[in-house]
């Protein structure tokens, strides 16, 4: 596997007043890797993810994303990443085609390029019949698949996925992961959070956040060995059970 580092953090910290949301987290993510970013509610995942996307300035520590500094080069970071969350991803009142064109346009792609690529994408997702339909009328699973494709439409180095499969049916959930594997094979790094522990198994490496710290980081196999657990679910339970920061 290629060992180019695309995300590198060193004691990255975010404080809100007295509250330390993320506490000196240090880790590297490699090119083309599927990196699972797990943690209990309120462990600091969202805060960390915002810093990595260049949406929030860290309080201290260092981090580079796709080779760019999170303090000074946030605009360049944004041009080199894709983002998709369960809550917001596409405009429900625009058609499939319009959404693709819009998001392609945001990233400054040429009109002709957008046209040819969106045809390809629509064909790949099997949405030929739905291209003129409003996104709001599509089933959730299709929306999520389309949203992911749009998030990587501009061929970013890294794509951040925030609970992309929440509430999606088991079949579509697997189709979604097929898309993730494809992207990963093309060299796109996947940074993903999820509540489904079986999905943690699909990641190359997994980090577990508890109370603002990264408490464990390794391949699923090694994590299970380390905690002498049968499943990732058990690993997570073992780690998160000790969390103090439950009410936040």
């Amino acid at each position, binding site marked *: 596997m290629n060992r180019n580092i695309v995300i590198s953090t060193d004691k990255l910290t975010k404080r809100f007043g007295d509250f330390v949301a993320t506490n000196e987290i240090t880790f590297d993510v490699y090119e083309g890797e599927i990196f699972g970013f797990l943690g209990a509610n309120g462990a600091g995942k969202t805060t960390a993810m915002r810093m990595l996307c260049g949406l929030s300035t860290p309080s201290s520590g260092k981090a580079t994303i796709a080779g760019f500094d999170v303090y000074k080069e946030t605009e360049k970071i944004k041009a080199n990443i894709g983002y998709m969350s369960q809550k917001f991803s596409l405009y429900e009142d625009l058609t499939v085609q319009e959404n693709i064109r819009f998001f392609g346009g945001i990233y400054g792609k040429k009109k002709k390029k957008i046209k040819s690529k969106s045809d390809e994408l629509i064909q790949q997702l099997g949405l030929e019949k739905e291209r003129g339909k409003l996104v709001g009328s599509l089933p959730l699973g299709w929306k999520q698949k389309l949203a992911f494709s749009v998030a990587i439409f501009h061929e970013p180095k890294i794509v951040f996925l925030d609970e992309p499969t929440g509430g999606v*049916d088991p079949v579509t959930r697997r189709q979604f992961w097929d898309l993730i594997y494809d992207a990963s094979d093309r060299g796109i790094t996947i940074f993903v959070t999820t509540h489904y522990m079986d999905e943690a198994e699909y990641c190359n490496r997994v980090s577990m956040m508890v109370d603002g710290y990264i408490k464990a980081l390794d391949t699923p196999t090694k994590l299970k060995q380390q905690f002498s657990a049968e499943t990732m679910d058990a690993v997570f339970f073992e780690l998160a059970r000790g969390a103090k920061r439950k009410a936040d």
Partner: protein
Amino acid sequence: MADVVLNHISKTYNKGEVKAVTDVSFEVEKGELFGLIGPDGAGKTSIFRVLTTLLLPDAGSASVNGLDVVKDWKAIRKRVGYMPGKFSLYQDLTVEENLNFFATVFNTSVAENYDLIKDIYVQIEPFKDRRAGKLSGGMKQKLALCCALIHRPKVLFLDEPTTGVDTVSRKEFWEMLKRLKEQGITILVSTPYMDEATLCERIALIQDGKILSIDTPAQVVKQFPKNLYAIKSERMSQLLRDIRHLDYIDSCNSFGEYHHITFRDEDDYEIQKKLIADLNSKNHEYIEFKATPATIEDCFIKLLDQHE
């Protein structure tokens, strides 16, 4: 006696354009913990809203605690507890204020039914002066459950109570439901998480507004039509693609650290040996192959397959 009865219930929106629920019938016994399992948009919420008298069904009839959901809506509203999909709390009121408010709305007081919520409430009591909006997902969920229980309902409707909540809180939540069941409360719970199905006494698998199967989790699993095998190798995504190309394979789906497969026709030692040989020829190493019991999720996928 059945506490909740649905008789050919259908519900559409936008003048019939969107079919949310189609001809759904099932019964829930008194004191039963019944799970409605299906993805978002399957029609779970619509069923809950019909049963809680919030929506009128287009067709069919339903009763809760022996009362008709259309005619006796007032009486039903006095007897049921309902926790909607979003934890419906007042974000700007404190934990204690929320609980007191709902207790009063339900014509009771916290003290009167404290024994019922005590186990749950002690966990959030340290934060009783905190505003609900400042609680974590797990804490909100517990408070919402307390509020839904405060009037000692006969039937409890919990619509996706564990969505967006981490595993630890989810486990704790199901423990609470088991204890509530022991108090004789009939509980209807919906969830998109297939692994939670085994925690229910009986389940209905639902997709696109239609029931795929209703039974005990053990029975649902037993009905899985084929032998299921788990397989893994060094390169999982390549393994998935390679296996799917083999014509004697019926299905291959990723399942955590393994892929689950079924064979198309014959299923014997010969074909298994052939599979390993074929995969070896495609440079897969350290192949692990074993029989595995089907899970609810396997069944759900299989049922979806048959449906399409």
